[in-house]
C-alpha cells in the first residue's frame, strides 16, 4: 500500500486536531487560531494534491480498512479509500476551503468570537474531508453527522440573534429527518450485505457479490432490497442537499456569516448529499440482467432533482436579500446535480458539483464582499451602482454570474450544465426533466441578471439625490441586519445621512478578501475546459481512463443541438433580465419590482417561497406539538390514573377494613363484653341482702322441686 493511501487519514485529521487545539485557546489568541486552521488546511491541500497525483498515475480503488469494535465473533470495520472520485473531491474541498479560510480572516476581523469561528471551521473541514475519504457507510454517517453539527454551530454563530439560533435548530432538525431514512437504510444495508465497507477486496457492499444479492431480494411494494436501501439513503442525501421537500433549512441558513454560507451551504456540505449518491451509485444503478430502463432509484433521484431545479430557480426570481437569491440558486443547482447523476451517471453530476463549488463560492464571497463594503446591508433594493465603488468585486462577481448562468463556451457552468442537459435529452424514460432543466436555465439567467442590475448597475440608492429629500423608508422584509450588528464601519469616507442612520460610502474590500475572489474567478473559467466533449478529461478520469483531444466529438449524438439551444436559452434569459431591469435604471428602494408590477400575486407567492414554511408550520410542527401534548396528557391522566385507581382502591379497602375493625370486630367484642357486664348487673340484683327475698327464693325453689319430683315419679 502506497504511502499516500496509508496516510490519507491525515487529511481530515489535521484540521480536526487544529479544531481541538483552538477549542482550548482563549478568546484573544486570534492569530494562533487562524494560523492553526489555515496551516492545517494547507497541509491537507498538499496531501490532497499528492493523492490526486497518485490517482492520476494509477487510478482504481485503494482502501485501508481497520477494525473498530468487536461484537460476537466479528469485527465492525471502518476504513478509508482513494479513488478518482475521492481525489477530485479532496482537492476541491481543501482548495476552496483554504481560500474561504483566508477570506474569513478579513471578513470576521471585527468579530469578538474570531477564535471560535476558526475552531468550528476547522472542525467542519475535518469532518467534510472525513465524509469524502470514508470507505465505510458508518464512518461516512458519523462524519456526516459531525458536519451537521458544525453547520448548526456556524449557522447559529451569532447566537444572540434569535433568528440565527432558530435557523440553526431548523437546519439540524430538517437534516435529521432525512438522516432517519439514511440511518434505516444503513441498517438494512448492513443486514443484507453483512458489511458496511464499500470496497473490501470483493466483499464490500458496493461490490458485485453484495449487489447481486441485494437485487435478488424482494421486499414490500415489489421493490428490491437494493432499491429500498438506495431510496432510504437518498432521504439523507435529499435532506443534506436541500432537495424538495427538505429544502426549507437552506434559505434560513443564510443567517450565518457569509464565509459559512459560501463554504458550507454552497460549495461543500450541501454537495455532500450529491457526493453520497455518487458513492452509492453502484447500488442505485444495480439491476438484474440487461438495463433496459434506468432503475427505480435513479428515476426517483432524477425527478426529485428536476423538480428542485425549477422550484429553487422560480423562487429566486422574487427574493430581495442578496444571500437568499444565492441560497435558492444553490437549491436549484443542487437539483441539477442530482438530476445529472440520475440521467447521466456519476461523472455528469460530479462535474457540475465541482464547477458549481467554485463559482458559487465565488458568488457568495462576492456577496460577502458587497455586504462588508456596504457596512452590513443585505437588501438589494438598498444597493446599486456598486460597480463604481467595488470594481474588483464586480469583475469577479460577473465571472461567477456568467458561469452560473452557463454563458456559452468560456465559462465552466456552460460545459457542466450542458452535460446534464445533454444526458437528460437522451434519457429514455421521459423528456420532462430536460424541459424542466432548460426552463431552470432560463430562470437562472433571468434572476442573476436581475440581481446584477439591482446591485451593481445604476446609482447607489442610499445616497441622497441632489435637491430631493428622501423620506426614511421601512425595509419591507427584515431578513437582513444580523450582519449589520457585527460590522465595524470603515473610517475615512464622508458619511451619508439616510433614514437608517449614518451609512458610509461603499468601499472595496481588503486584499485578503479580494484575492480569493480573483483566484476563484480564474477557476470558474478554466475548470470548464476539463470537461468539454472535445476533451472529456474529467469524465474519463473518474472512470480511470485517459482520453485525447478530439474536436469531432462535437458532432456526435445531438450535442451541437443541445449546446445551441442552451446558449439560446441563456441569451433569452439574459435578454429578459435586461428588458425588465436594465432598460430603465432602478431609481429608489421603494420602487416595485418590474416583474412584480406585472404580476403582483405570483410575485408575492414566489417571494414567500410558495408558503412551504407556513405549510410545514401548520401541519408537521403542529402535529408534533399536539402529539407531544397528547403524550404528556396520557402520562398524567391515563397511566397515572391507573396507578391512582389502584391507590384509591387500596385506600378504600383500608377504610373498609378500618370500619370492620373498629365497628364490627372491635365493636362486636365491646358489645359482647357489655352484655356480660349487663348480665352480671342483672344477676347481682339477686344479691339483695334482704332475708325475705332469700326466703322467697328458697320457697319457690322448694315448690318447683316438689312439682318436679311428683311429675317425674309418674
Amino acid at each position, binding site marked *: 500500500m502506497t504511502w499516500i493511501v496509508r496516510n490519507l487519514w491525515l487529511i481530515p485529521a489535521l484540521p480536526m486536531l487544529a479544531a481541538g487545539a483552538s*477549542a482550548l485557546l482563549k478568546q484573544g489568541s486570534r492569530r494562533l487560531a487562524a494560523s492553526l486552521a489555515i496551516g492545517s488546511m494547507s497541509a491537507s491541500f498538499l496531501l490532497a494534491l499528492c493523492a490526486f497525483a497518485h490517482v492520476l498515475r494509477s487510478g482504481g480503488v485503494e482502501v485501508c480498512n481497520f477494525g*473498530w*469494535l*468487536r*461484537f*460476537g*465473533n*466479528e469485527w465492525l470495520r471502518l476504513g478509508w479509500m482513494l479513488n478518482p472520485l475521492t481525489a477530485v473531491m479532496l482537492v476541491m474541498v481543501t482548495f476552496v476551503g483554504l481560500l474561504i479560510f483566508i477570506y474569513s480572516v478579513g471578513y470576521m476581523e471585527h468579530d469578538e468570537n474570531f477564535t471560535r469561528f476558526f475552531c468550528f471551521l476547522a472542525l467542519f473541514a475535518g469532518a467534510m474531508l472525513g465524509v469524502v475519504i470514508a470507505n465505510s457507510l*458508518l464512518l461516512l*454517517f*458519523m*462524519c456526516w*453527522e*459531525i458536519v451537521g*453539527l458544525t453547520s*448548526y454551530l456556524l449557522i*447559529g454563530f451569532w*447566537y*444572540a440573534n*434569535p433568528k*440565527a*439560533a*432558530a435557523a440553526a*435548530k431548523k437546519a*439540524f*432538525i430538517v437534516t*435529521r*429527518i432525512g438522516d*432517519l431514512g439514511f*440511518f*434505516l437504510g444503513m*441498517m*438494512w444495508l*448492513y*443486514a443484507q450485505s453483512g458489511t458496511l465497507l464499500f470496497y473490501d477486496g470483493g466483499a464490500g457492499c458496493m461490490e458485485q457479490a453484495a449487489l447481486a444479492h441485494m437485487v435478488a431480494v424482494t421486499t414490500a411494494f415489489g421493490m428490491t432490497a437494493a432499491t429500498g436501501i438506495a431510496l432510504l439513503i437518498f432521504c439523507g442525501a435529499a435532506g443534506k442537499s436541500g432537495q424538495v421537500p427538505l429544502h426549507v433549512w437552506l434559505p434560513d441558513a443564510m443567517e450565518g456569516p457569509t464565509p459559512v454560507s459560501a463554504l458550507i451551504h454552497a460549495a461543500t456540505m450541501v454537495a455532500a448529499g450529491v457526493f453520497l449518491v455518487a458513492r452509492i451509485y453502484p447500488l442505485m444503478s444495480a439491476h438484474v440482467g440487461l438495463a433496459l430502463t434506468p432503475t427505480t432509484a435513479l428515476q426517483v433521484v432524477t425527478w426529485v432533482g428536476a423538480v428542485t431545479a425549477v422550484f429553487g430557480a422560480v423562487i429566486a426570481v422574487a427574493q430581495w436579500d442578496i444571500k437568499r437569491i444565492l441560497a435558492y440558486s444553490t437549491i436549484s443547482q443542487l437539483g441539477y446535480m442530482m438530476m445529472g447523476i440520475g440521467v447521466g451517471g456519476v461523472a455528469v453530476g460530479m462535474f457540475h458539483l465541482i464547477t458549481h463549488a467554485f463559482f458559487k463560492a465565488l458568488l457568495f464571497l462576492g456577496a460577502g464582499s458587497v455586504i462588508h463594503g456596504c457596512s452590513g446591508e443585505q437588501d438589494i433594493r438598498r444597493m446599486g451602482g456598486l460597480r463604481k465603488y467595488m470594481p474588483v468585486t464586480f469583475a469577479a462577481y460577473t465571472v461567477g454570474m456568467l458561469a452560473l448562468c452557463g454563458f456559452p463556451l468560456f465559462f465552466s457552468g456552460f460545459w457542466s450544465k450542458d452535460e446534464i442537459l445533454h444526458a437528460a435529452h437522451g434519457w429514455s424514460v421521459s423528456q420532462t426533466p430536460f424541459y424542466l432543466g432548460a426552463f431552470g436555465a432560463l430562470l437562472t439567467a433571468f434572476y442573476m441578471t436581475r440581481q446584477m442590475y439591482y446591485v451593481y448597475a445604476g446609482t447607489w440608492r442610499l445616497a441622497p439625490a441632489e435637491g430631493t429629500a428622501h423620506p426614511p423608508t421601512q425595509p419591507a422584509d427584515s431578513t437582513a441586519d444580523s450582519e449589520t450588528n457585527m460590522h465595524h464601519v470603515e473610517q475615512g469616507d464622508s458619511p451619508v445621512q439616510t433614514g437608517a442612520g449614518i451609512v458610509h460610502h461603499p468601499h472595496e474590500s481588503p486584499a485578503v478578501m479580494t484575492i480569493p475572489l480573483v483566484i476563484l474567478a480564474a477557476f470558474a473559467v478554466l475548470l470548464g475546459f476539463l470537461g468539454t466533449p472535445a476533451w472529456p478529461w474529467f469524465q474519463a478520469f473518474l472512470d480511470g481512463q485517459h482520453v485525447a483531444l478530439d474536436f469531432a466529438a462535437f458532432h456526435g449524438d445531438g450535442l451541437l443541438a443541445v449546446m445551441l439551444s442552451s446558449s439560446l436559452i441563456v441569451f433569452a434569459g439574459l435578454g429578459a433580465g435586461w428588458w425588465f431591469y436594465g432598460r430603465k435604471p432602478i431609481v429608489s428602494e421603494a420602487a416595485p419590482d418590474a416583474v412584480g408590477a406585472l404580476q403582483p400575486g405570483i410575485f408575492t407567492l414566489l417571494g414567500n417561497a410558495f408558503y412551504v414554511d407556513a405549510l410545514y408550520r401548520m401541519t408537521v410542527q403542529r402535529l*408534533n*406539538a399536539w*402529539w*407531544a*401534548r*397528547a*403524550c*404528556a396528557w*396520557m*402520562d398524567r391522566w*391515563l*397511566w*397515572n390514573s*391507573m*396507578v391512582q385507581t389502584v391507590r384509591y382502591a387500596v385506600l378504600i379497602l383500608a377504610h373498609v377494613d378500618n370500619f370492620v375493625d373498629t365497628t364490627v370486630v372491635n365493636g362486636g367484642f365491646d358489645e359482647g363484653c357489655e352484655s356480660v357486664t349487663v348480665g352480671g348487673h342483672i344477676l347481682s340484683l339477686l344479691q339483695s341482702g334482704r332475708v325475705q327475698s332469700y326466703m322467697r327464693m328458697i320457697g319457690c325453689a322448694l315448690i318447683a322441686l316438689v312439682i318436679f319430683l311428683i311429675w317425674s315419679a309418674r
Partner: protein
Amino acid sequence: MNGCPCISVLTAIPVIGAVVVLLARNRNRRMTRWLALGFSLLSLAMTLLIWHYFNSASGAMQFQEQHAWVAMLGAEYRVGIDGLGLLMLLLSAIVVPIAMAASWQIEDRVPLYFSLVLLLQACLFGTFTALNFFHWFIFWELGLIPAFFLIKIWGGPKRTAAATQFLVYTMVGSVAMLLSFLALFLAVHTFDFATLAQLAQGGQLMPAVVAKLSTHRLIPHHLAMWIFAGVFLGFAVKVPILPFHTWLPIAYSEAPTGTTILLTGAMSKMGLYGILRILLPIFGEQMQRVSTPLLWMAVATIVLSGYSALAQKDMKRIFAYSSINHLGYCLLAIFAVVKFTGNDAGLLTQKYAAMNGAMLQMFNHGLTAAAVFWFIALLEKRSGGLQGRNDFGGLRKVVPVMAGLMGIALFSSLGLPGLNGFVGEFLIFKGVFPLAGWAAALSVLGLLVTAVFILGVIQRVFTGQLNPRWAAMPDLTTAERMALAPVIALMFAVGLYPQMLLAMVNSTAMQIVQQVRLAF
C-alpha cells in the same frame, strides 16, 4: 487475585464510609464532603483494580465467593461478576462521585446526606454482584431506603408525595417478584440464579413448579406466565417500562439533583441488570411467548416518553423523560434478542450486536445522564434553584465554558457520533433491524424527538438575548472544570474507542444470548 474477597471488600468500603461520615458532626461540612468523596473514589480505585485483573475473554463468573447462610431457606452469600456485572460496578463507581460533586452545595444535615449516598452505593454494589436471590433481594430492597430519605428530606416542594410514591410503587413490584420466587423455591428448593437458569434451559423448571403448585383450574402454561408476570412487574417498575413509569418524572424532579443523578445513573440500571441476569436466563421461554407485546411496550417507552419530554417546561422533567426514552432502546434490544428465531445462525450475530449495544447503552446513558444533571445542578447553584428551561436565556455570552461543556454532554445524549451516546444506539439498531424491523423503524422517531427537545433546551437556555437577570452569572470555576474534565474526556474516549468497554462485555453478551433457547 482469586483468593482475595475483592467483591466483599468493595461492598464494604461504602458501608464503612457511611458510618465514618455519619460519626462526623455537622460542624465541619467541608471535611465531611471530602471524606465522603474520598471513600467513593476509593471504591472507584478498587473497581479499576478488579477490572485490571478481570479476564475479558471468558464469559463465566469471576471473583466468586460463596458462603453458606441459611440452608433451609436456600439463602447463601454468593457473589461474583461477569462482564455485565463489572460494567455496572464501574458505572456505579463513576456515577457516585459525580452525584457527590453535584451535591456540594447542600448545607443541611450534610453528614446524613453523604452517608445515605454511600449506603446507596453499597446497595448498588451488592445488587450487581449477588448471585443468590435471597441475598440479591435484600440489597435490591435495601437500596430504596436511602433513596427514599434522600428525596424526602432534601427534595423540592412535593417531595413527600414523590418519595412515597417511589417507595410504594417499587415495593409493589418487588413484592410480586418475591411471591414468584417463592413459588419457584417451593418447587425446586433453590434460590441460586445459576441453578435456576440451568433448570430453565433444561426445560425442567416450569414443569416442577406446575407439578407442585397447579390446581385443576389453572393450565400449566398460564401458571408459568403468572409467575413470569410477577417477576416482570418488579423489573418493569424499576427500569421503568411504560406504563409503569409514572413514579419517575416526579421523583426525579423533586429529588435534589445529586440524588437524581444517582437515580438515573445507577439505580435505573438495576432494573435492566435484573432483566438480563434473572428474567432472560430463567424466564426466557415465557418472554419468547410474549415477545411481540414486549416489543410494543419497548417502542411505546421510546416514542411516548420522548414526546412527553418535548411537552415539559422543567429541565429536570425533560431529562427524566429522556432517561425513560434512552433506556427504552436497551429494552428494545433485549426484547428483540429473546424473539424466537429458530436456528438461524445469521440472526445470532444480530443478537450479539443488539446485546452488546444494550449493555454499552446502559453505561453510556448512565454517564451522559449523570453529566447532564450535574450541569443542571450547576445552573441551579448559580440561579438560586431555578431549573425551568424558560428561566434563562442567552447564557452563552456569560458562561461560554459551561455552555460548551454542557453542549457536549447534551449532544452526547442526542447520540452524536464521536461521543459516547452514538455507539450503543447504533449497535442496538443494527441488531434489532433484522430481528424486528417494524420496531426499529418506529423507534427512530425517538432519535428525532430527542434532537428536537435537546436543541430546544440549548436554544432557550444558551442562545438568544441575554436575560438581564443573569448578566453576572459566574462561569465554571477551576475546581469545577477539573472535576468535569475527566467525565467529558471519558465521553470522547468511549465515543471514539468503544472497544475498551466492549472488550469487557462481549463474552458475557454472547453467553447471555446463547442462553436464550432457540427452540421451544
